[in-house]
């Protein structure tokens, strides 16, 4: 029985005796592992990006909007009445607050108007909100402060700017304390929001101006519609588990208040976590697909190893015969050739891992995705390449072990 150290020495000697051939054989595995690692890392990066951007909208969040959602996904105004976009009211928001599991309810009214400051024009989204909006959306103030409820009720002419608006209108000076002009009026800036970046749907969430809801209703969006309607109600649940129940409770409550039946709703409750899940699932399938395609090249690498090992067994028939005559058992020969194949594939796997990580880093920095590489990936790459070595090295090694020593010694 051969010592393990002798087995390793013998395999490495055999591989070193023909370095070019060994390198070319390993190259197949290197390419395979590198592409698997790079593709899986890229896919995982894309997945993390999607999850992160959707989560940036706010966690445990339900968004109630007017109008019914068709099965196709579009939002339809309630038939007849001509008031499909005016179905949500402040009173609806106050009723939702009473439900169990609610942390914050933030009605808001969207408006679009030009914002002028510093001699510059900008067209952000203007959102009339209550102070709870920041709680519901997991948003923080970067500088200055948020307006309070008293200021909101008094319809004060104050605003909080999103990061993009602050940068565009006040590139060099601190915006807090400055003023902007909207819809003919002057508004004082009391705070600037932290940046949230793009949403999962590609919108710049920082291109926004927050103003007190009553201010927007009275001074910006004008007299269109009823005075107490809102364009959106954000509802934050206390936990992700409570989200599903709360969604049903909100739907039931609003149906009672609006006197509508199920299927004829004039509102839609969107559950962001289910959207997140769907999006994450899509990217995960994408990841598996990329990984699977790359795995095919690893398979090709394995066939390369088998091919070379078969050639090697044929070339070294006489050596195998001699080793058997000198007392090598079948198991010794099997292990020696098996180890050569596994060494080739694992060495290829390690080099491929390094190249794959480098490739993933290059691509993610190119596409500005987060780089996600875990020990799980590394282990998978090494384990998979070792498996390839065992699978494709087994047959040549078995052939070597089964050689008849008399025949083998006679071979020239």
């Amino acid at each position: 029985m051969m010592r393990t150290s002798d087995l390793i020495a013998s395999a490495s000697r055999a591989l070193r005796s023909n370095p070019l051939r060994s390198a070319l054989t390993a190259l197949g595995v290197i390419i395979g592992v590198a592409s698997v690692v790079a593709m899986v890392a890229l896919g995982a990066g894309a997945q993390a990006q999607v999850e992160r951007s959707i989560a940036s909208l706010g966690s445990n969040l339900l968004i109630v909007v007017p109008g019914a959602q068709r099965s196709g996904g579009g939002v339809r105004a309630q038939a007849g009445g001509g008031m499909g976009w005016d179905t949500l009211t402040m009173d609806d928001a106050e009723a939702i607050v009473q439900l169990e599991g609610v942390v914050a309810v933030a009605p808001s009214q969207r408006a679009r108007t030009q914002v002028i400051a510093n001699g510059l024009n900008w067209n952000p989204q203007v959102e009339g909100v209550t102070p709870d909006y920041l709680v519901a959306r997991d948003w923080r103030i970067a500088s200055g402060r948020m307006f309070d409820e008293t200021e909101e009720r008094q319809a004060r002419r104050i605003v909080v700017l999103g990061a993009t608006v602050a940068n565009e209108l006040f590139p060099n000076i601190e915006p807090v304390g400055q003023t902007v002009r909207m819809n003919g009026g002057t508004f004082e800036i009391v705070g600037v929001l932290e940046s949230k970046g793009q949403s999962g749907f590609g919108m710049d969430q920082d291109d926004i101006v927050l103003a007190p809801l009553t201010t927007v209703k009275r001074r910006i969006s004008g007299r269109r519609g009823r005075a107490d309607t809102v364009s959106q109600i954000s509802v934050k649940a206390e936990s992700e588990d409570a989200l599903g129940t709360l969604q049903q409770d909100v739907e039931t409550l609003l149906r009672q208040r609006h006197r509508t039946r199920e299927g004829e709703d004039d509102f839609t409750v969107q559950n962001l976590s289910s959207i997140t899940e769907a999006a994450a699932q899509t990217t995960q399938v994408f990841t598996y697909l990329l990984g699977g395609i790359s795995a095919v090249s690893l398979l090709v690498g394995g066939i390369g190893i088998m091919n070379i090992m078969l050639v090697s067994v044929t070339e070294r028939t006489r050596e195998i015969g001699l080793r058997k005559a000198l007392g090598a058992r079948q198991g010794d020969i099997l292990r020696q050739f098996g180890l050569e194949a596994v060494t080739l594939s694992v060495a290829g796997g390690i080099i491929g891992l390094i190249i794959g990580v480098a490739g993933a880093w290059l691509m993610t920095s190119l596409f500005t995705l987060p780089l996600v590489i875990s020990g799980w990936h590394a282990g998978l790459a090494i384990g998979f390449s070792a498996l390839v070595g065992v699978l494709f090295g087994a047959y040549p090694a078995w052939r070597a072990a089964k050689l008849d020593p008399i025949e083998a010694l006679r071979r020239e």
Partner: protein
Amino acid sequence: MASLIQARDLTKLYRMGDETVHALAGVNFDIARGEYCAIVGPSGSGKSTLMNIIGGLDTPTSGRIVIAGNDIGAMADDDLAVFRNQTIGFVFQSFNLLPRMTALENVELPMIYGGIAPKERRERAAALLERVGLGARMTHRPTQLSGGQQQRVAIARALAGNPALILADEPTGALDTNTGKEILALFGRLNREGATVVLVTHDHEVAAATKRTIEMRDGHIVSDRINGGTPRHDAHL
């Protein structure tokens, strides 16, 4: 003195197409410890088959051969491998040294399969190379050695497992006459030092260098005699 090799009614059949060839057709002989003997015969006489069976590379079709207590016909593959490693020292016509290894590493090879520790292996291999007169060439590779030197390395390798029997197949076949004589002299010396040596050859001159000649033809032993003396009375013809 107990026999090292005891062969009784040994046969070996090969099937070649429809024909059955009796490579060995009922062979009986004994070889004692400490003997120096030659098995001679032309090609096709069955001497190579007999050598393969004695060396544990092949098994008989029928009959029984026991070597140092090992019943060759009854052994499994792995047991035969251990037998070859521990009991037999092979010397081949074409030396069969591994070209990428030094003389020392070649001699170590059987001890690797014997599971002997590296340090002990190295010391023993060096001592054996000294014994065959190659103490100064231990780190040479086979291509850097003459044919005679290569065969000496091979003989040192055959001695590495401390075998009960040295089995040499045409050991002088690839050497010039003078070198061949030196190698035969080496076998003679090893025999005087206690080794049992069996040479297999077609060359009667080589056989004459040993103490006993077993001559084969067509699968039978046709003569068995002490060289320079009378036929052995106990030969099973």
